[in-house]
């Protein structure tokens, strides 16, 4: 009886550590492996976090955002917490706005990726403005935010469908699509 609680805590810590390490591996791959298109790399971490928020919910996705953001900061040598805050902003904007959409709706990942990417870049731009140097919001939008958003939209649907399928299998659900 007495050993149940400690085991649960240990399991939870091991799970969190596993998640953090997996996201660190993804962040390293994103920083070092992903190809550069339109001056940016497709932001896999952002897309994973948004899909997680849409499929599982904001609380779970917030953990992904935090671990993934810290991993990106380590890989990119930006101030620790900057990417975590940007990813958390993406989760906090996307999940409540799209909460009423069915997970079976194919538009959900595209809207989610668009909203999430814009929220992410707004927060990142704001933090850059505060911590690094002044930038023009209009030009930042044109040169950084919009190309990155377009790049994120391309793999949004296949990644969302894969993650939804995996989550469905985990829960034993039958997927229903709305066209």
């Amino acid at each position: 009886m007495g050993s149940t609680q400690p085991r649960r805590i240990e399991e939870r810590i091991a799970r969190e550590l596993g998640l953090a390490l997996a996201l660190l591996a993804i962040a390293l791959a994103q920083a070092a492996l992903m190809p550069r298109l339109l001056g940016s790399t497709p932001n896999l971490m952002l897309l994973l976090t948004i899909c997680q928020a849409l499929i599982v919910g904001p609380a779970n996705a917030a953990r992904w955002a935090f671990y993934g953001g810290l991993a990106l900061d380590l890989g990119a040598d930006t101030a620790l917490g900057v990417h975590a805050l940007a990813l958390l902003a993406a989760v906090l904007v996307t999940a409540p706005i799209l909460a009423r959409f069915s997970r079976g709706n194919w538009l959900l990942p595209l809207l989610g990726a668009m909203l999430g990417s814009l929220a992410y870049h707004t927060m990142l731009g704001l933090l850059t403005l505060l911590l690094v140097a002044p930038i023009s919001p209009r030009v930042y939008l044109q040169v950084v935010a919009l190309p990155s958003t377009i790049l994120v939209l391309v793999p949004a649907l296949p990644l969302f469908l894969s993650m939804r399928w995996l989550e469905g299998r985990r829960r034993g659900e039958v997927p229903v699509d709305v066209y």
Partner: protein
Amino acid sequence: MRDSLRNRPIKLPRASPYRSLTLVVALVLLALLLVVLDQAGMLGSTRAQIQTLLTPIMRALRQVGDGVNGVGQGLTEVTQLRDRVAALEAENSQLKASDLQIQALQLQLARLEAQLRIEKEKPWKLLGADISGRTPDGGRRLVMLAAGSQQGVKPGMPVIGREGSSPPSLIGVVETVGPRSASVLLITDFSSAVSAQVYQKDKIATGVVQGQWQVGSRLKLEGVERADPLVSGDVVVTAGLTARMDTALPRAAIPKDIPIGIVESIKVDGHSQFADIRPYVDPDRVSYAWVLLSQDE
């Protein structure tokens, strides 16, 4: 639903909305705290230790990623794609002729030869290193170098790159240094400003080269007096003003006469001139660079 052994209802776990909200708010606050602590320099040593562990992994990934990057860049520019195909064909024939170990040695030899050539031409002492990582988004132009304080790298040291037949040119400045890795701010980043000069017939025009990537171009030469008219094709080199002053500033190590790029177009505004600069080396394409450790006087 009932527990068949104990004959009592099973309580399914339900996520409390307050607990979820608390978790999200806690993570946001924690991230904010990390930003503040990092800005205050309190996480520097921990961060350096983690990056020391990550650098070899990123270096290995980067080598794999270079091939993928080549394809991505080629897709965006047809001419680059053609050049890349030609280079890959040549490289492929070489690969067939020699095994991987010899290739690695050849690469090392080529880099050392390039370094020796540069050191023969210029009074520089260089340290070559792989570029192990880049910023994952378009917000800033930083690269991670697989060399750090253990190899003698210090903040403020200029970083040189070479591409094809270009002269060895400035691509960035070391910003922060860990034991075995260093973060380099590329000259194309909008927060990068380097004093520069253009040699003219009987005088020297001076100005500041400002990064312009986030505002749609690459480099801009600013603050050149109108009395020193710039011409398209003029060569822009570093002025080395901070190095000449010999201050104890962390960014005082850029010597003069490091090539930067060529003047492409000129605009006149009041008493000063602005010029768009085409860098000799595209920092985004460099996978190996040299840190200028010192210069013989």
